[in-house]
């Protein structure tokens, strides 16, 4: 702010106190907490109880403040201008005789509400200051310097039921009954098994033998098993022939199939 502008406006402000207040307003306009704050600051120049304040005078002071700000090309936020418009309206209401056809609150009611708002804001400020002046923790009152942490001891209790116990035991004792990764194929003799059987027995025979006699014990009675064993033994015999280790012969259709091992000299 330049000295010139200050001198120029000197006559606008009547007392030193008022001028100081106004200067504070203008210089610190950013520091104000909105138009109500400005109004509260202006109201102090009236030096009366806020309940007896002249809202009309206050409105005029505010409007002058806004004018001044404008002349100084200080940009006021929109809400300051809205307040100015409202106060101009309030001023006209207060000055003109009430129009009975007009609805809404009267000028006096609006003025009273504004006074109430100012008083309330003022009261809150005082209480805030009182609050801050109390004996505060960390400044006047102190907490325990070495607080002890309450230790959280987590106890884990393990439990098991009788059923768990018995099942566990049964599981171990019957483990042999379980053959992992083997399908339950009780009545099927695999070709590998048949081959093992053949290989084991072939050395003991020098002549033609019915391949049925190579079927292992326990696979002859049950028809299902015998069928499977016959098929796999025949397939195993063919494998041996293919490997050059045996010769097969069948004299007639559906006649028994005979196998004869081939000696090394015959191969």
């Amino acid at each position, binding site marked *: 702010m330049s000295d010139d502008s200050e001198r120029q406006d000197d006559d606008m402000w009547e007392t030193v106190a008022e001028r100081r207040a106004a200067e504070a307003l203008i210089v610190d306009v950013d520091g104000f907490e*909105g138009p109500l704050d400005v109004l509260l600051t202006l109201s102090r120049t009236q030096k009366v109880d806020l309940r007896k304040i002249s809202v009309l005078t206050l409105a005029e002071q505010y409007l002058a403040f806004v004018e001044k700000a404008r002349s100084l090309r200080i940009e006021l*936020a929109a*809400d300051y201008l809205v307040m100015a418009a409202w106060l101009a309206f309030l001023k006209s209401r207060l000055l003109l005789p009430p129009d009975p056809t007009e609805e809404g609150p009267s000028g006096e009611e609006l003025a009273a*509400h504004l006074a109430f708002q100012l*008083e*309330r804001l003022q009261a809150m*400020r005082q*209480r805030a200051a009182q609050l801050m002046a109390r004996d505060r*923790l960390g400044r006047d009152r102190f907490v325990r310097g070495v607080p*002890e942490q309450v230790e959280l001891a987590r106890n884990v209790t393990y439990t098991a039921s009788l059923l768990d116990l018995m099942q566990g035991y049964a599981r171990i004792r019957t483990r042999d009954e379980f053959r992992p990764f083997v399908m339950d194929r009780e009545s099927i003799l695999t070709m590998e098994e048949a081959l093992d059987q053949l290989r084991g027995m072939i050395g003991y025979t020098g002549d033609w033998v019915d391949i049925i006699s190579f079927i292992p014990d326990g696979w002859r009675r049950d028809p299902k098993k015998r069928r499977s064993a016959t098929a796999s033994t025949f397939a195993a015999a063919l494998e041996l022939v293919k490997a050059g280790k045996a010769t097969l012969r069948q004299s007639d259709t559906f006649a028994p199939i005979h196998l004869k091992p081939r000696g090394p000299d015959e191969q």
Partner: protein
Amino acid sequence: MSSEDQDAVEESLFQAPPLAEQERMIEAMLFASAEPLSLREMSARMPHGSDPAEAMVLLRKRYEGRGVTLARVGDSYAFRTAPDLGFLMSRETTETRKLSRAAIETLAIIAYHQPATRAEIEEIRGVSVSRGTIDQLMEMEWIRFGRRKMTPGRPVTYMVTDAFMDHFGLETVRDLPGLKELRAAGLLDSRPPLGSFPGPGETEEDLDEAMERDEDQGDMFGD
């Protein structure tokens, strides 16, 4: 410890410990904790059948006028050094973050008007509440959310916390300075603003906030 006390401790496993013993227990727990403890929290740690409420009366009396005093904070209790001895503790002081004027006023408004909506705070201060202010107070754990208000838009409300009361040495919110006078003067009444009175400006806020406030304003102007 005398053998009599020893017996008392052993008996306590089966029946509530004697009052004097309960007093020692709450004394130990409160001494060990930096945070206020409620009777319920203490009771949970004490032997079965203990009732710390009675022991608390005795303990508070015992510490009256001492260098450490037993402060009540809402439903909880905490040992705090006597305020007149703060000067001895200067070395323990940790500089608390300076609060802005807006934050201090907002805090006071919430304390005296709680539960208070953002719109109410703005109405009283005549200026919009910046998000940072509320955030800062929340972060300091001096305010918390209260119940939503049963007005159009169901705005959130703010209340002060036990940490707030602990910090300012208040037993309950009823102990706020000058609360009675304010109430008697009608300054805590929620008077709806008249007609077209200008509200706080929306210019400097971000969209979220403006939307939030629109919601809030439902309650200001809606009825």
